[in-house]
Structure formats: C-alpha cells, structure tokens
C-alpha cells in the first residue's frame, strides 16, 4: 500500500519563510517611512 510521505517540516519551513519575508518587508517599510518622515520634517525646519 502507498504510504503518505512524512515531509511536514518542509511545509512548516515554507510557511515560516513566507511570514518572515512579508512581515520583514512590512517592518522595513514602516521603519523607512518613520525615518523619511522625520528627515523631511527636519529639512523643512532648517
């Protein structure tokens, strides 16, 4: 009888990698917006 392969670890890795890439980019964008907003405000004051 054909047995279902035990490869759940690869699925978990793919789900973790996807979350890390997308959440990581979201956090990076957040940080870039904060920095750019601050610098734009400071340039406006000079």
């Amino acid at each position: 009888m054909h047995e279902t392969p035990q490869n759940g670890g690869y699925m978990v890795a793919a789900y973790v990698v996807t979350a890390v890439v997308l959440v990581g980019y979201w956090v990076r964008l957040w940080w870039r917006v904060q920095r750019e907003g601050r610098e734009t405000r400071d340039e406006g004051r000079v």
Partner: protein
Amino acid sequence: MIADRAHGLRIATRGRVISAVGLVLLAGVYVLAQRYTPMEASQGLAQKIFYLHVPAAWTSLLVFSVVGIASALYLWLRDERLDLFASSSAEVGVVFSIVMLTTGPLWAKPIWGAWWQWDARLTLTLFLFFLFVGYLSLRAAVSDPGERARFSAVVAILGFLLVPFVHLSVYLFRTIHPMPVVLKPSAPSLPDSMLRTLLIAFAVDLVIYIGFVTTRYGLGLLAQAREAALEGHDHA
C-alpha cells in the same frame, strides 16, 4: 509633481494599515490550508506549500506586468506618478519573487529530491527576478530623476516581455515543473476546496501588494518632499 510631506505620510499610513490587514488575512490562509484542504496522498503535507508558492508566483508575474505597462505609459505621458508607481511596484514584485523562489525549492526537495533544477520555468523565473533586481540597482545608481525614470522604464518593458515566456515555458520547453492547474485553456483541475483556498490566498496576496505598494508610493512622495525642501534651502 510637487510632493507634500503630509500627503506622503497620509498615503504611507493608509498603505501600512492595508498591508497589516493583508498580513492578518495571510494567517487565515495558513489556517484554511491546514484545516479546509485535503491532504494530497502522494505528496503529503509538502503539497500545502502550493497555497503560498502559486499565489506568490501569480502576484509577482502580475506585478511585473503592471510595472512594464506603467513604464510604457510613463515613456508616453511623462507623468512622474507613473514612474513612482512603477518603481514602488517593482520593489514589491521582487519581495513576492523572493517568496516564490524560496517556497519553490522547499516543495521541490521532498518531491523531486533536489532543491533546484535548471529547468526552463525555474531558470526563466530566476532571470526575471535578476532583471528586476537590476532594475532597482539601476534606479539606485542614476541620480538624475529624468534619466533614472527613462532608463529604468526601458528595463521594465524588457522584463514585461519575459513574463509570457515564463508562463508559457511549461508548454514551449520540456520541463519537470508541474503544468498549470488553473491558468490553462480547460477548466481548473483541482478539487473545489483546493481551488477556493488557492484563489483566497491569491486575493490575500493582492491585498498585501496593494498595501505594500501604497506604503512604498507614500515613501517615495516623502523622499521627493525632502529633496524639494533641500533644493529650497540651496536656492535661499
């Protein structure tokens, strides 16, 4: 285009909220894939990578097409907003390509027994990814805004021309990559629960794309506002 700090911040904030909603919905896709879809007997749990890999692949190909079209429109209309939209989309397209190019090998290893094959579909996809990384590098290297927009628009249009070859590569070349199960001339060859989950995952990826690109666009407006302020000081 005169960029305004408040306008840029408003758009970026809107984008951050939309993308946060999209990321929460992505957690829902994870639950759907585990609870709602059946276990594929021959591939095991690794088959469930399909619900992340395929929507990411569709999204990146769609986004690179959008970048190509927006770039062609920029060359025609010379509207800076199109250039900013194209460059914002290209960055997000590269992010989705990273998801596609990492989840693919994680599926391939248990199913094919190898992380990577120099197969037509995989190789063309990798070239498309490199082309848009080159697009972003080119934009970072050229300081004149007009030249930067024109040069990168040409690269984006060339990338767009590669998109149909990526999709059709499974028909044009001998390949071990699975054939399309949804985007093909005949009806989708998937059980309903798998098809529904796949389409929901694609819709969620589109929400995330809209959120990311809106944030990135707002960020671009902020950068323009800062440059305008700097130029104002130089002239003063």
